[in-house]
């Protein structure tokens, strides 16, 4: 039997805050309580008030408590544009929690690139990780700064406009090559970022990295088979086999 926990919600976006240039935080009031979820889970959100886009969009759960769900998104296309601009309150349909989640082990490291911070943020704040690395493009994209610093996160920007200058993957690399114990790493960020981490994983033998992957989705829970991606071991469904995978399962041994 399929694990029975997802459900459909009617939501009303009641709050929207601009975090940086094109990144927004929204608060969605739900028609019922959001059941327990795990870090890495996502929801499918449908803009039912619009005739376009036709399909829903996946968003990581940033926070969910009782009847309020919080998401963070970057404006990249049709749906995110509307979410950023339509007058509030604004009604949406959504379903979740969906997908698998990040592993929960002792002394894990955590590394996030840009929006990849979203599904990891709450667990960072809860102190789940031994070390935290967060990278941004530039200062404008740096959000929730104080709380990250409080947790001792290492922050870098590609252009050095805040924190260390350079790709966060390289700071992570510097740190990890000195680790003696086997380390489990959870990662979330763009595909290029995950690919680089995989290279690091292959070089530094004693780590195992789990990354959260993105692709276009229609259903979000394994029925349309539209989100399949090719891996050395065959097709996997990002929505229901993932979105969290061992990097080696996606990119190869």
């Amino acid at each position: 039997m399929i694990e029975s926990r997802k459900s459909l919600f009617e939501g009303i976006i009641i709050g929207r805050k601009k975090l940086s240039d094109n990144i927004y935080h929204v608060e969605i009031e739900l028609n019922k309580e959001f059941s327990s979820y795990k870090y890495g889970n996502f929801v499918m959100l449908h803009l039912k008030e619009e005739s376009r886009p036709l399909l829903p969009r996946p968003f990581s759960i940033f926070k969910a408590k009782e009847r309020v769900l919080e998401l963070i998104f970057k404006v990249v296309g049709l749906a995110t544009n509307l979410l950023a601009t339509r007058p509030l309150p604004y009604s949406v349909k959504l379903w979740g929690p969906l997908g698998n989640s990040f592993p929960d082990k002792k002394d894990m490291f955590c590394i996030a690139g840009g929006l990849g911070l979203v599904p990891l943020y709450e667990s960072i704040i809860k102190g789940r990780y031994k070390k935290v690395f967060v990278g941004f493009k530039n200062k404008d994209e740096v959000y929730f700064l104080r709380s990250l610093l409080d947790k001792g996160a290492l922050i870098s920007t590609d252009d050095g406009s805040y924190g260390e200058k350079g790709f966060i993957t390289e700071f992570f690399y510097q740190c990890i090559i000195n680790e003696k114990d086997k380390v489990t790493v959870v990662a979330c960020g763009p595909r290029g970022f995950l690919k680089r981490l995989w290279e690091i994983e292959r070089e530094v033998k004693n780590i195992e990295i789990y990354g959260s992957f993105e692709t276009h989705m229609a259903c979000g829970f394994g029925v349309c088979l539209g989100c399949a991606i090719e891996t050395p071991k065959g097709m996997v469904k990002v929505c229901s086999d993932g979105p969290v995978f061992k990097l080696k399962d996606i990119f190869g041994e």
Partner: protein
Amino acid sequence: MLEIKIGNLFLKNPFMPASGTFGSGLEYEDFGDLSELGAVVTKGVSLKPKVGNKPPRIYELPSGMLNSIGLENVGIDKFTDILNQLKAYKTNIVVNFFGNSFEEYIEVSKILDEHNVVSCLEMNISCPNIKEGGICFGTDPHVIYSLVRNVKKVTKKDLWVKLTPNTGNIVSIAKAAENAGASAIVIANTYTGMKVDIETQKPALGNIFGGYSGPAIKPITLYHVFCCVREVNIPIIASGGIFNIEDVLEYLIVGAKAVQVGTANFTNPCILWDLIKDLKDYLIKKNLNIYDLIGSIKL
């Protein structure tokens, strides 16, 4: 009030999912009681497992979507386990199937015929995404006649035939299926279409082309249903762009006896249950029975 009969099957209501958009049905357990649906139509199954097409497999368009899943499925053996789980539901279980050859169609039919939980077989002769599969079969009335006839020989269960709209002679094909012993015709599968990414100059789908579904196709499929209803005597089940009660009413008015909801399941996983309620409310408001609606078009 909503009950209808299709061949030997009684349906509580005319609503069922379209194959491939509802998994095995079990994935929707969280969203509603499957027993309340007129039928559950499962994802297309074939004799052997199929890995499906190269990603990307879906692309969204202004008023529809393209998919090139390529009939990925676990094969009839593993599928049988899933079938057993569907026993728990008091509804008709319709199994959509296809083959890469005459023999495969017949082999799968034989196996499905032995399963009590299966109420009815839905033969897909229409998927445009695989070259060996359906498409060559789907557009020749003679081939369809002989395929349906041979499948009917190996199963006592009702057989529905799901047609491709990618043909100029859908009425002849529907007639051929009827004459060969089909219990109902499902009209229609997706329209072959494509999208080009102008940045990369590559097709947006890994498979180059795919099946076009959603609101955009409704006017064309509605016309196909209208034409076939006039020429065949077995029930027509409509599939194409059903998103709201108005779409349902249009199909029933032109003469469809039941409807399959496909792409709309992705925009609202509870849509089938919502539509059952909407239709009930509509009939009560208008003081009608469902049979007053079916084929009520005024020309």
